[in-house]
Each structure stands twice: as structure tokens, then as C-alpha cells.
């Protein structure tokens, strides 16, 4: 059984590398956190079918990482593009609405590389990203230190 069965294999390796390299003081992690209302197919369906459909259509946060004073909403993606950007713009708000926190809920991207045209939008949106090499880490320009 993979260590992080909810992540794609390449993303699981990336996440394991990140955990082995980071110096951020995480206290605990939650994985595959469902947020949003999901899509209800309506009362024409049995209750169990409706429940399943809603669950399967909810948005899924890869990792919610807790530190003493920040909740990080983390998207893990080998090559991160504008899909990840959209997720990281939306998921903190959805998470905070479902699970109110006394601390800031902030987005964070963990990736190997940014896709073409992704750096400028990420920087403009102010969403931090960490580029995780397979070898010992180097801080990325525009990102935060591991």
C-alpha cells in the first residue's frame, strides 16, 4: 500500500521528498479533505446514490497542513499549471467556510516545476510555491524557503 494512497504516484513521491526536506514546523496533516457542496443529482435518486454522487463530486484538497498559527491548504502537483492556481484560489475559502479556524487559512503549492505561463499568475496572485528537487533543496525565486 502506498504511503499516500490518495495522491498520484508521482505526487506521492514529490510529497515524500518535500516532507524529508522541509523545515516548516508542521504539527499535523490531513489528507484528501473534501470541501464544497458537491453536485446533488436530485430527489429522483435514492438517498444512498445521492450521498455517493455528492461525495464523489466534492472538491478535494490534497493536504491540509497545520502549523501553530497557520493552516496551509496545499496542492501537490509535479508540474503545476493554471488548474492548480484555480484550486489554490478557491480551496482556502471553501475550507474556511466549512471548517472555521482562528488562524489564517493560506494556500501553498508544492511542485517539481511550474508549467509554462504559470509563474506570472502565481506571483501576481501572491500564492507561494515551493519547488522540490529530487536532490537536496534550493530555495526558489518567488517561492518560500523549505
Amino acid at each position: 500500500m502506498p504511503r499516500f494512497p490518495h495522491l498520484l504516484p508521482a505526487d506521492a513521491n514529490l510529497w515524500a521528498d518535500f516532507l524529508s526536506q522541509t523545515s516548516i514546523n508542521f504539527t499535523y496533516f490531513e489528507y484528501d479533505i473534501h470541501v464544497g457542496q458537491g453536485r446533488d443529482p436530485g430527489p429522483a435518486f435514492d438517498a444512498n446514490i445521492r450521498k455517493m454522487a455528492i461525495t464523489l463530486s466534492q472538491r478535494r484538497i490534497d493536504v491540509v497542513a497545520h502549523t501553530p498559527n497557520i493552516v496551509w491548504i496545499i496542492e501537490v502537483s509535479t508540474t503545476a499549471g493554471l488548474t492548480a492556481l484555480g484550486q489554490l484560489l478557491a480551496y482556502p475559502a471553501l475550507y474556511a467556510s466549512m471548517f472555521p479556524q482562528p488562524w489564517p487559512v493560506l494556500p501553498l503549492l508544492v511542485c517539481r516545476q511550474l508549467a509554462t505561463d504559470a509563474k506570472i499568475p502565481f506571483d501576481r496572485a501572491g500564492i507561494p510555491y515551493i519547488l522540490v528537487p529530487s536532490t537536496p533543496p534550493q530555495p526558489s525565486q518567488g517561492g518560500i524557503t523549505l
Partner: protein
Amino acid sequence: MAHSIEDIPPGLRPKAKKSNFLAWLSVTPLTNSVKRSLIAAWRRHNNDDTFTPDDYRVALTDRSQEGR
């Protein structure tokens, strides 16, 4: 994120249950983007390269309202 094999009912996860998995997708009221994500999870789990365009057609056809 993508769906994982854990999102698929256990009885439909084995490779030998492909036809049942397709039938389940065809009658389950999910959007095609969710269905595609579930198919990808099933294929990763089974290291499957047997999905054909017809398989996708079956899976992505919404028959969930039939008989109602």
C-alpha cells in the same frame, strides 16, 4: 486532486470487474469530469491499457435516468 481507487466501490476495483465498473459508471449520476477521474484511478490501480473509445462512450453515457 484526482480521485483514488478508494473512491470506487471495492467490488468494482479488480481488473476482472471492468464491465461491471463501466456499467456502474453509466448509471451513476456523476458529471463526465468526475467519471473520467474515476476511470483514471481505476486504470492506474490496475495498470490497465485496455480502455477503448467505446469503453469511454459507455462509461460517459448518462443512463442514470432510464426507467424513472
